[in-house]
């Protein structure tokens, strides 16, 4: 097997296994209150980390580029209670203009 198919096979297996681990192990069952309290804070922690890395990181380096302007514009949209769709479009348009 060449590198290409090795990568397809093992990246696929690893990603599928990670995605499935929680739902297959405990799927459908109510979490105990203490664990639910953890999961409640897990979403904002992960969302914030995704915002930070996708807006300010490229290939293991911190960068400040057009995406930061787009994110700032998104923040303004959110403060003015824009729908999610509008927020996303505003971010993309501002980023595209900054790059043009």
């Amino acid at each position: 097997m060449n590198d290409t198919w090795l990568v397809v096979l093992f990246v696929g297996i690893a990603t599928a296994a990670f995605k499935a681990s929680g739902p297959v192990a405990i799927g459908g069952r109510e979490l105990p209150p203490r664990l639910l309290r953890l999961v409640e804070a897990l979403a904002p922690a992960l969302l914030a980390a995704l915002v930070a890395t996708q807006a300010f990181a490229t290939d293991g380096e911190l960068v400040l580029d057009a995406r930061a302007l787009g994110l700032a514009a998104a923040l303004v949209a959110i403060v003015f209670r824009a729908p999610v769709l509008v927020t996303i479009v505003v971010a993309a348009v501002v980023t595209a203009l900054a790059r043009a």
Partner: protein
Amino acid sequence: MTTEPAVHAFRDSLRRGVRDAVPLAIAVALFGVSFGVLAKSAGFGGIATVVMSLTTFSGAAQFASVSIIRDGGGAAAAITAAALLSARFIPIGLSVAPVLRGRVPARFAKSQLVIDESWAVASRGGGLFDAGALVGAGLLLYVAWLAGTLVGVAGGGLLSDPEALGLDAAFPALFLALLAPNLRKRRLLVAALLGAGIALVLVPFVRPGLPVVAASLACLVGWSRR
């Protein structure tokens, strides 16, 4: 559990998930095109590229591993990088596990529709998730990702430059929009700030993917206090 109202409720939230994911599907499809083009330039055959989008369904893992192969990094490095990037699906999967019901094969199938975007769209705050919205958004984004990959493989690379359109900024904007309602609760605000802080501090020092995984530790903040 499968009474009529429950089925209707599931169908409604499925539809809501599809609707909420439409703008994301456009961005995901265009990134699918550029993935197809990138994989071709890395020497991946058309079938291998499409099979990867079918079975992996994670932009981050696919872009990273294929780029490493293109740059001559070897299979082991490519697989390691992708596994690190996908490790965040362990905490993400855990957070949606309570609402993914059914037998093991059904739970497995639904769990594969979890990507950052479908998970975010299904988030209802307070640690709660909408299974229907997750499946609806996940299915639409899956189709978009596959369609984009096919177009890219078929040589449609000239059609799109997602970054010129600013679409890479659409995803952090989405996550910020879905994060915002959480921030009124003090403990969740602290968890978010801590999560972002941990991730940013680690970015220059560890392999890509690990910062987000480490950020999940921020959920421990204020846990023991009632």
